[in-house]
C-alpha cells in the first residue's frame, strides 16, 4: 500500500469538503476518492470518517440524504451546503497560508 501519512487534525474536514465539490457522494465513495487522488498516501479509516461526517453535518456544512446507489442499494449521500462552500473557501485559504508559512520556515534552515 505504500507509505501512509496520518492526517493532521482538522485536515480531514477540509479534504471531505473539497471532495464533495464534485457532487453528492456516500461515505465509502469519499474515502475511496481521497485515497485515489492522494495516490494511496492518505488513508481515511471509517473510524475517523463517519464521526467527521456527522460533525460536519451538525455544523450545517454538508447535508445528507438517503438515496439509491448503484446495484439498487440504499446509501447515505452527502453533499455540500452553501455554508459548506463558504467554509471550504475559508479553510483552503487558511491551509494555503499555513503550508506556505511552513514551507518558508523549512527552506530557511
Amino acid at each position: 500500500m505504500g507509505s501512509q501519512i496520518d492526517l493532521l487534525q482538522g485536515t480531514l474536514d477540509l479534504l471531505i469538503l473539497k471532495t464533495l465539490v464534485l457532487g453528492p457522494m456516500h461515505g465509502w465513495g469519499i474515502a475511496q476518492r481521497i485515497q485515489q487522488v492522494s495516490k494511496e498516501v492518505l488513508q481515511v479509516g471509517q473510524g475517523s470518517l463517519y464521526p467527521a461526517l456527522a460533525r460536519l453535518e451538525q455544523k450545517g456544512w454538508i447535508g445528507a440524504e438517503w438515496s439509491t446507489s448503484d446495484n439498487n442499494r440504499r446509501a447515505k449521500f452527502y453533499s455540500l451546503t452553501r455554508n459548506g462552500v463558504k467554509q471550504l473557501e475559508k479553510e483552503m485559504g487558511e491551509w494555503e497560508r499555513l503550508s506556505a508559512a511552513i514551507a518558508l520556515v523549512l527552506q530557511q534552515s
Partner: protein
Amino acid sequence: MNIFKRLWNATKKNKLENELNAEMRFHLEKEIEENMARGMSAEEARRQALISFGGVQQTRESLREVQHGRFWDSLVQDVRYGARMLRNTPVFTLVAVLTLALGIGANSAIFSLIDAVLFRPLPVSDPKNLVFLEWHSLQRPQTHSYRSFGDCEDDTDGPRPNGCSLPVPFFRDLQSKSGVFSHVAAYTGHERLDLSGNGPARIVYGQFVSGDYFGTLGVRPHRGRVFLDNDDTPEAPPVAVVSYAFWQSTFGGSESVIGKTVRLNGQPFAIIGVTEPKFEGLTMGGRNDVWVPLTHHRAVVPQWTAKQDAMDSYWLIVIGRVKPEVPVTQAQAGASLLYRNDMLEGAKPIFKSEGQPEIKLVAAQHLGAAKDQILQPLYILLLFVGVVLMIACANVAGLLLARSAVRQREMAVRLALGAKRGRLIRQLLTESVMLSAIGGALGLVFGVWGVRVLLAMVGAGDENPPQISPHIDWTVLAFTAGISVLTGIIFGLAPAFRASAVSLTSSLKAGGGAASAGAAGRQRRFTAGSTLVSVQMALAILVLVVAGLLVRTLGNLKNIDPGFDTRSLLLFAVDPRMAGYKGAHVDNLYHQLQEKFAALPGVTSASYSQVPLLIGSLSTTSFRKPGTPRDSKEEVECDELPVGPNFFTTLRIPFQIGRDFTVADFSVTATNDSEIPGSVPTPVIVNQFFVQKFLPSTNPLGQTFADNPIPKGDGKKDPGYQIVGVVANAKYSGMKREVHPTLYSPNASGSAFFELRTATDPNALIPTVRNLVTHENPDLALFRISTQIQDIDNQMTGERLTAQLASVFGLLALGLACMGLYGLLAYEVTRRTREIGIRMAIGAQAGNVIRLVLGRTMVLVCVGAVIGIAGSLGVARLLKSALYGVKAGDPLTLLAVLLLLGLVAMLACLVPARRATKVDPMVALRYE
C-alpha cells in the same frame, strides 16, 4: 450545537442507531466488493474489509458523541454509574439520604408556610389586578372616628401616618368621578353579630359590603344570587348572603336556606345566596359567615354612633379594579387627586395641605395585618432549618470524604485509563446530586407531613386560627429542587476535588487500599474532615444556644406573675346591644347577670370588665396630673379599665387601702358619662404604680384630678375623678407588657366580658352559664368563651411554637453533628489500625491510645464550640425582639448547651475510642 437539537437527537436515538448501522453495513459491503474485484476470495475479501474497517463499536461511540452531544450522553452514563455505586453501598446511601431528607424536608416545610402566607392565592377571579386603596400622609388625620378590622396595619399616630380605612363620601366620589377604575367596591368589618331566628342565638362574623362587592371580586354564588347594586339602597328589602362553610355547618347545606329569614343583632334579613366554597373574605385571618349590604350597617351596629356618612369618619376598606388600558401609576394619581380634593377642600379639612395626603394602590393579596405577626417566627425558623441543612451537608460531605479513601484505587485506575480529572469530578458530583435529589424527594414527603404537624400545633385552641393553607405548588417544588441540587453541589464539591486528586503511582502500587494511602493525601484528607467537624459543632451550638434562649423566653413568660390568680377563671362575653337592648338597660342587664352568675353553685364570685385581661386589648386615657392646680396644663397618661362590681375580689387583686366600688359609684359614672354630667367626681380605683408615679408623697385616698381635655365651654362641667381605693399592680393587656399606672373605673361603657371565679373546673360550668343566659333572653348569645389560662396560652402560641420547633431542630442539629463526629472518629480508627497496633506492640497503654485518637478531635470540638458561641452571640442579638428576660450571652443557656454537647460528643467518641483500645497488635500488623 443547539442544545435542543441534541436533546431531539437523544429522543430519536433508535432511528439514528438504525441509520448508522445501515451506513456502516453499506460501507463494509462496498469494501468487500472492492476487495473481490481485486481478486480476493469472498472470505479473504471479507476478512480484509473487517481489518481495515477497524473497531465498529468505537466508531459508534464517537459518532454518538457527536450526534447526541457529549454532555447528555455522558450524563446518562454518570447517572447509571452513580446509581450502581449508591446501590453497592446501601448503608452509606441510606444514612446520607435520610440526613439530607431531614435537612431538605425541614426547609421545604417552613418554606411552604412562608409561601402560603406571602403568596396567598386570593379566592377571587383575576386576583392580579385587584387593588385596595391605602392613604398616606405626613400628618395625623383630623378624623372624628376611625375604625379598622385588621385589614392592614393602620397607623394614625406615627411620623408617617397611613391606613386603609376611608370615609363614605370619598368612596362615592371614587365610584362616580375617578374614571380610572372599572369597578370600585367597599366593605367594613369582620363584625361580630348575634344571629337569631335559627335555633338558639349564636355569634357569627360578618361584613357590610357595597352593592358591587361580589361583582368587583368576581365571586359567584354557589346557590341563589349575590348582591346587585340595588340591594345596597335604603329602600331595598334587607337581604344577606352566607358563606358555603356556614351554610353547611348551620343550615346543613339545605336548599331551603334561600328565602329564609334570620335576625342579625335583631334586624331581619332574608338569605338570598350562598357564596362559592373557596370564598370566605379577602383578608387573611378573617373568615366570614355572612355578608349584608352596607346600607344596613347603621341599623345592625347602632352602638357605633359616629356620623357614618361624614368625611371625617374613616371606616371603609375600598377595593377596585383598574381599567385594563390605564397604567397603575395613572390610576394612583387619579385616586390621589380625588382624595386630596376631598380631604383638603371640604368644609372641615381632614389634613392641612402640607400633610400631602395621597393614595397608594396596593395588591389586594397584601390585605391582612396579621401577616407580619405570623411571618416573624417563620423567618426565625427558616434560619434554623437553614443551619440544620448546612450541618446535614457537612455531615454527608464527611461521609463522602471518608468514602473517597476507599475509592482511591478506583479513581487511580480511571485516571490511568485516560479519564480526565474534570470528568471524574463531574462523575462524583453527579453522584452527590443524585443523593441530594433522592433526599429532596423524600424530604418533600417529610415536609408535607411536617407542615400538617406544624399547623396542628399553631391552630390548637385558637378560636379563629390564621387561614394558612400550604400546599405543594410550583414555588415550593422549585424551592425544594433548587436547594436539593445546590446542597448536592455544596457537599459534593470538596470531596470530589479531593477524591480525584490522587497520586497515581502510590495508589496503584499499594495493594491494601485505604490504610496505606499516600502520607500527604492522608494528612490533607484529615484536615478537610476535621474542618467539617468544627463547622458542624459550631453550627450545632449556634442552633442550640438560640433554641435555649427561646425556651428560656417561654419559661420566663410562663413564670411572669400577672398580679392576679389566673387559675379557675372562666371568661365569656354577652352583648345585649346585639339583642336590641339600649341605654341604661344594657348596664342593668350586666348587673343582673353578674348577680345571677355569682349565685350559681360552683361559682365563688363573678364580675365583668370592659375587656378581658391578658388577651391583647388595651385602652388608655389621659388626664391632668393629680396633685397639681386645676388650671394646670400638665397632662399624664395611664391605662384605663372600666370594671364591674367585685372585680378585684373575683380576680384576687388585693386592696392596699380604700374600698371597692359600690352600687352608687356605678350610677355616678353613668351620669357623668351621659350627655349632662353631674357634679360628683367619678370614683376610681388606681394601682400602686399609679400612686408611686403621680402621688408619691400624699395620701392618695380622696385625691381628685381633672379630665383631659376639659370639655369645652358648652355648659358642660368636668366632674373629674376621685380616688377611692388603691390595689396591687396587675398586668393588663399581656404578659410581656410591663405594668403601667392603671386607673379602674366603674363600667358603664355598654361592653362587658364576664369573669367567673369557680370552685372546680371552669369548663364544666359552661353549659350552666349558657342555660342561664338563654333563659334570661333567647336572643342573647354567649361568645368568646375561654379560661384565663387558655387565653394566656393562646397569647404565647407564637413563642411556644418557635421555642418547641427550635428545640426540635436544635436536637436534630446536635444529633447530626454527633453522627458526623462519630463518623470521623470511626474512620480515623479504622485508618490508623496498623499504627495503633504498632504502638501497642511497643508498649502503649489504652490511655495513650485514647489520647492519640481523641486528642485532636477534642481540640476540634472545642474550636467549633468557641466559634459557635461567638456566632450565637451575634445571632441572638438579631433576635432580641423575640427574647424576653434573657440576654444574648445568657450564661445558664451557654452552660447547659455546652454540657449537653460535651456529653453527647463523649458518647459519640466512646465507641470508636473503645474499638481503638481493643486493637489486637498481631491482627493489626498482619492486616496488610
